[in-house]
């Protein structure tokens, strides 16, 4: 059909000389967002962390299945519950030729916790670093913490001498007077070096010949471009201009697979998408119910839950690239996730619950939703609104770009929402992060569970959370987590929807590993 319509347009035959094909080892890829800064501490965002993870390295790293592996630290042990000893790898050089040693680790530990660092939570403020010798560092804690190093794969080590020589000790900030060297150039220990960086447009890398580990890739050059428009991104893959694009819109997966030269690489992502309600205020800001807050009534929350047909969202909006979730964390990150099941879709049940709660005729409430943050976020919100309409709830959908959305619903906007959609990946890949950020009680300013936007509060959950943090025995810890999740799930603190899927589009002559945290590691890319 389309072809027939468009054929008359094809006049420019004279221009057809074919696209110049990239040389075999040049790998070109595009992502929807931009690489915001080369300073590894200035933005705590998956893409920036992942990209710079090819250039900088941490003491640890994660493999394709996200298992923690030694990297710049060869080994570590807790010599006492509050003293950990890290043995550093010897003979590692930064890209400029400087040696890596304990001074760099201690410098980086200070820098990452300095003013302006966005990775300040990587290491607690009370944690002390001590140099034992050039290749041994002790880390002293004020209380035991079994997950101390869980996020250290994204705590990149910076060269002390280089940073000091180039006025880059301070973390790059938007209030700087001029650009710092570390924001324009990179000097890490990783498998790739940055050759050129065109801010916000493209970045070129070449392999680091002196990398300490053996390279598993066969690339000689990597070119990264930002392509924000989904259609253009997919077009660039289909036309053979690029070797990898991500994310691929879920509806285009079939097209990418049908095309002989490309295929879609899909897998589960760790981010959980969920809905939340304001359960804190005595009256909702955006509702026609005055004088009380319907969401304080658990039956209303349950009714909302039951009214949502998650399977329809999965098959129609997400084209099956989503896993409906019963809890607020991915089953890949919590061994006992299988003990939980979702409340069934039940329109009549939902209506009955609403009637019981005194809202037989439903009510009106606004819903805040981002429209450029998660996979098909606005479409999901629209679908939810239509589903709730069937039980008499009128949703006024307020879908906005993420900049405006976050400014409104987060603490800085005063949690200005009554009903919202949000997504969360625990940075430490651990349940405690969920309980601490999303389920813990908070005050009006956001002290406590800072991203518990709806203000759900149960002191029992908080108490369990504190126990979980210091529990060293994995089995006991998982049991405590289960108890906490049982409370939050039965009280419908949030409505978990699903873990969205990852969808990368790759050219058929490329082999690579897709990590579930959506970080792209170039050292296991091979071009045929």
């Amino acid at each position, binding site marked *: 059909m389309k072809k027939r319509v*468009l054929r008359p347009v094809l006049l*420019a035959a004279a221009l057809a000389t074919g696209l110049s094909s990239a040389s075999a080892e040049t790998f070109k890829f595009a992502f929807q967002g931009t690489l915001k800064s080369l300073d590894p501490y200035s933005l705590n965002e998956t893409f920036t962390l992942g990209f710079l993870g090819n250039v900088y390295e941490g003491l640890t790293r994660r493999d394709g299945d996200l298992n923690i592996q030694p990297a710049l630290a060869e080994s570590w042990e807790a010599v006492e519950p509050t003293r950990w000893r890290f043995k550093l790898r010897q003979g590692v050089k930064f890209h400029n030729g400087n040696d890596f040693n304990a001074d760099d680790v201690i410098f980086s530990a200070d820098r990452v916790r300095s003013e302006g660092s966005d990775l300040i939570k990587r290491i607690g403020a009370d944690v002390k670093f001590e140099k034992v010798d050039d290749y041994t560092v002790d880390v002293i804690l004020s209380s035991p913490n079994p997950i101390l190093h869980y996020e250290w794969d994204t705590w990149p080590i910076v060269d002390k001498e280089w940073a000091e020589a180039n006025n880059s000790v301070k973390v790059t900030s938007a*209030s700087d007077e001029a650009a710092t060297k570390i924001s324009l150039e990179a000097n890490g220990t990783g498998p790739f070096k940055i050759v050129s960086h065109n801010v916000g447009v*493209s970045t070129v890398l070449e392999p680091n010949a002196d990398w300490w580990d053996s390279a598993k890739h066969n690339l000689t050059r990597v070119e990264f471009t930002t392509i924000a428009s989904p259609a*253009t991104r997919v077009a660039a893959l289909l036309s053979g*201009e690029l070797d990898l694009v991500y994310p691929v819109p879920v509806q285009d997966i079939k097209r990418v697979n049908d095309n002989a030269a490309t295929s879609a690489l899909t897998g589960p992502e760790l981010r959980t998408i969920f809905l939340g309600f304001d359960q804190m205020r005595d009256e909702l800001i955006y509702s026609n119910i005055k004088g009380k807050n319907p969401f304080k009534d658990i039956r209303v929350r349950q009714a909302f839950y039951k009214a949502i047909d998650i399977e329809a969202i999965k098959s129609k909006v997400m084209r099956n690239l989503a896993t409906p979730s019963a809890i607020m964390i991915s089953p890949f990150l919590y061994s006992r996730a299988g003990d939980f099941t979702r409340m069934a879709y039940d329109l009549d049940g939902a209506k009955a619950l609403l009637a019981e709660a005194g809202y037989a005729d439903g009510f009106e409430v606004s819903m805040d939703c981002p429209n450029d943050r998660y996979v098909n976020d606005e479409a999901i919100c629209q679908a939810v609104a239509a589903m709730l309409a069937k039980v008499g709830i009128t949703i006024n959908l307020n879908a906005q770009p993420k*900049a405006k959305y*976050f*400014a409104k619903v987060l603490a*800085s906007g005063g949690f200005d929402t009554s009903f919202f959609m949000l997504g969360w990946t625990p940075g430490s890949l651990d349940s405690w992060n969920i309980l601490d950020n999303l389920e813990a009680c908070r005050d009006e300013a956001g002290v406590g569970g800072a991203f518990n936007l709806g203000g759900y509060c149960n002191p029992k959950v908080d108490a369990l959370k504190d126990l979980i943090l210091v529990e060293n025995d994995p089995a006991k810890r998982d049991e405590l987590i289960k108890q906490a999740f049982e409370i939050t799930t039965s009280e419908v603190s949030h409505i978990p929807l699903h873990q969205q899927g990852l969808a990368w589009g790759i050219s058929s002559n490329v082999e690579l590993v897709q990590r579930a945290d959506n970080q792209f590691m170039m050292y296991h890319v091979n071009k045929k």
Partner: protein
Amino acid sequence: MLAFMIRRFLQSILVMLVVALISFLLFRFVGDPVDQMVGIETSIDQRDALRQQLGLNDPVLVQFFHFIAGALRFDFGISYQFKQPVAAMIAERFPATLELSLLSVVIAIVAGIPMGVYAGLKRDSWLSRMFMTVSLVGISLPPFLVGILFIFVFSVQLQWLPSFGRGETVLIGFWPTGFLTQSGLKALILPSITLALFQLTLIMRLVRSEMLEVLRTDYIKFARARGLSRRAVNFGHALKNTLVPVMTITGLQLGSVIAFAIITETVFSWPGMGLLFLQAVQNVDIPIMAAYLMLIGFLFVLINLIVDLLYVAVDPRIRIDARQAN
């Protein structure tokens, strides 16, 4: 004459100040930049500290004064997202946008003028009618859809032309140009045609109506009466007279071509200022938005001023008007 120039110049400065004030004031409402500058886990205290550092808590007038003082030195501060000086980023993107815009204006002129002349001379021929109607089709589709259909046909189906970016560029001095490489030229084709469609229709119609009017004047009738050849009359006399207003309007349109490049650049992921601006709007990157608007304002005022001064130089009547006005 001098008085007129000075007066006009002062007016231009006033215009720039107003543009500055408007852009500055509007930006206070577009959203909280701090939320975009930090990751989601950053604490409220840290956010407040950053807000303080950036001077976002200062009185509005103080902030405006800083803004103007900086702008005079071509210093628009540091981008909130990229943490790079905005002036340098705009300078880096400017060549891409200017090359795209200029090429589309050239395409519009090269195709639009002959079509307009023909349609003016033979206004009732079927080809003229076709030009008139077909040129309307080009502006009856939203430009983003045209761009996406182009990509679909020429990049995905036929694989003739690239779907994104500028291709390879060559550095001439500080200016990266796409005109000197094969991939650079190929990359220019789709976006520049998409952007040119609108101007082409405009120019064609303008030329046609100017031609129709000029051909009716006594001047042309007299030239014909003198026995000059049709060719000499049509091209030597009529077209020449048509071109002055056409060039003026085209010049004045350059500003809006650059602004409309926002859409073309977004569709084709063209690394120019428009794309940068749209990203800045979405990310509440106020310094970039401000710098972009100021630059567009400046370009426009500059073109306007030049056009005005040229007119004064060319047309004595305006000179008299200017004296009277004084």
